[in-house]
């Protein structure tokens, strides 16, 4: 099959489109680097990990962002641990358990959940959720609240994309399972989930990105104290909340320091992506 002229030009068009898509990330990285540069030069990057605390605009400024990295990681991990099983279960429910009419209704509901603005989630969390948590463990605005709200926000992504992945499993696989007389659960665990694992993995990746990057809702429920959380009831500040809280009023070095937390966030994402890339390839080749 030798490519024709139109095919070649199509290919180049597609390459150009993909290059634009890829270039956006590069532009954002460059933008962050430029904005963060003054802080990286002085006081220098090591200060961001070795200073005692985070007081960027005091007379003796301190720039430790390590607790916020911990806060981001804790909130994201918590949300992933909670939302992944729930999301996949919701997808399985849609695909294999619910009667068709119910499944379609349930999908509509997930789509709506995906479109509720983060400020509404945050407001709901602040007014309804944190007072509930406060009755157990004050002040209520806590890592736990952040994890719960984040799970709620990324659940639709995991559920909807996993459901599409499950839906595109070739029919013959499922017919084969039926012919073997496998039960519903065995069909799911032995045939459907393994066959859809790539799609589900990319759903989880997208959701993880969303969880790391979410700003407004977390800011409203997490309590925003810069500390390494010692329990799930402790208030934490994430890197994104740090930017959103302080950027509007930050000048000079403080502002640049906030962009360093943006860069740090990108580093976290790159680590995550590399890790998942590696796991996926092990999976395929192993």
């Amino acid at each position, binding site marked *: 099959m030798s490519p024709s002229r139109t095919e070649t030009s199509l290919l180049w068009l597609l390459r150009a489109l993909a290059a634009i898509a890829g270039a956006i990330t590069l532009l954002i990285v460059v933008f962050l680097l430029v904005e963060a540069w003054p802080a990286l030069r002085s006081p220098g990057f090591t200060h961001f990990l070795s200073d005692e*605390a*985070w*007081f*960027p*605009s*005091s007379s003796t400024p301190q720039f430790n962002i390590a607790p916020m990295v911990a806060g981001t990681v804790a909130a994201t991990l918590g949300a992933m641990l909670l939302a992944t099983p729930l999301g996949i279960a919701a997808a399985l429910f849609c695909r294999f358990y619910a009667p068709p009419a119910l499944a379609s209704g349930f999908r509509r509901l997930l789509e709506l959940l995906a479109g509720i603005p983060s400020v509404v989630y945050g*407001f709901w969390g*602040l*007014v309804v959720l*944190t*007072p509930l948590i*406060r009755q157990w463990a*004050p*002040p*209520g*605005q806590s890592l736990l609240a952040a994890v719960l709200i984040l799970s709620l926000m990324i659940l639709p992504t995991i559920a909807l994309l996993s459901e599409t992945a499950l839906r595109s499993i070739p029919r013959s696989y499922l017919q084969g399972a039926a012919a073997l007389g496998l039960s519903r659960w065995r069909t799911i665990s032995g045939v459907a989930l393994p066959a859809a694992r790539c799609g589900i993995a990319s759903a989880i990746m997208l959701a993880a990105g969303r969880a790391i990057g979410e700003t407004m809702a977390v*800011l*409203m429920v997490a*309590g*925003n*104290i810069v500390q390494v959380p010692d329990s799930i009831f402790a*208030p934490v*500040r994430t890197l994104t909340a740090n930017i*959103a*809280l*302080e*950027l*509007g*009023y*930050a*000048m000079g070095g*403080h*502002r640049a320091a906030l962009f360093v937390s943006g860069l740090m966030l990108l580093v976290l994402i790159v680590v995550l992506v590399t890790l998942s890339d590696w796991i996926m390839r092990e999976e395929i080749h192993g």
Partner: protein
Amino acid sequence: MIKKILKACCVVAISLLLVGCSGEQQEGAAADGLIGQLIVTGSSTIAPLAGEIAKRFEQEHPGTRIDVQSGGSSRGIADVRRGTADIGMVSRQLNPDEIDLVAYPIARDGVAVILHRDNPLQALSEDQIVAIYTGSVTRWSEIGGADAPITVVNKAEGRSTLELFLSHFKLRNEDIRPSVIIGDNQQGIRTVAADPNAIGYVSIGTAAFEVTRGTPIKALPMDAVEATLESVRNGSFPLSRPLHLVTLPEAGAGAGAARAESAALIQAFIEYAASSQVDDLTEAQYFVPLAH
């Protein structure tokens, strides 16, 4: 079908672009010679007020357009310096390194310490407030309240209410031991309203308004002065801040007729925003108009 959709998308996009490019020319000439567009950016506290002022200004001066954008005081300063905005909104005094800009006060705002309505304490001395915020008092029972831990609500670094609070109580942000850090005013009110053991500080007008509509909070008097808009107006309330519009001093000094035109517009808008003609708007946003 998708081809059709794509085509439609392209057509829509292109035609919108064309409309967009031609949209600029519909401004009619104004009787008073004021014409053109201003961009105002900055403090999210002032933005709703500035938006209302801009609407009224536009009505009185057809041919002008005032676009108000939000995003924080420092954004206002940065945008004016960079020239991406004509006027900045700054909800605090200018810092010593910001003397390259001229600030015009347009209103005042007070900051009140608030508690939950069910908290039995009716007033706190300054020393008690300092003790609570620095963490030397951590339970209400230590100062005659209920036997419960205090939820100390503080504002995020850089916020002007925080700076006002710190400078009044002669505190450093490093000394404060907060339980919760918040951003916007309303978040502070929600947090205190939801937690009977919380203490926080918010804009006075907002607090007074929320009390009248039944939100379970109360504003504490400061130095025995009631926390009301009235005491901010007569200057007796100790914690108050000006709300500013800032511009470059040479606005208008630049060459060219267009420059001079926009300088006249900037000046006219700032004067209008500081005049008694907008006092009702200022009060409607729960701020204190200037004494004229």
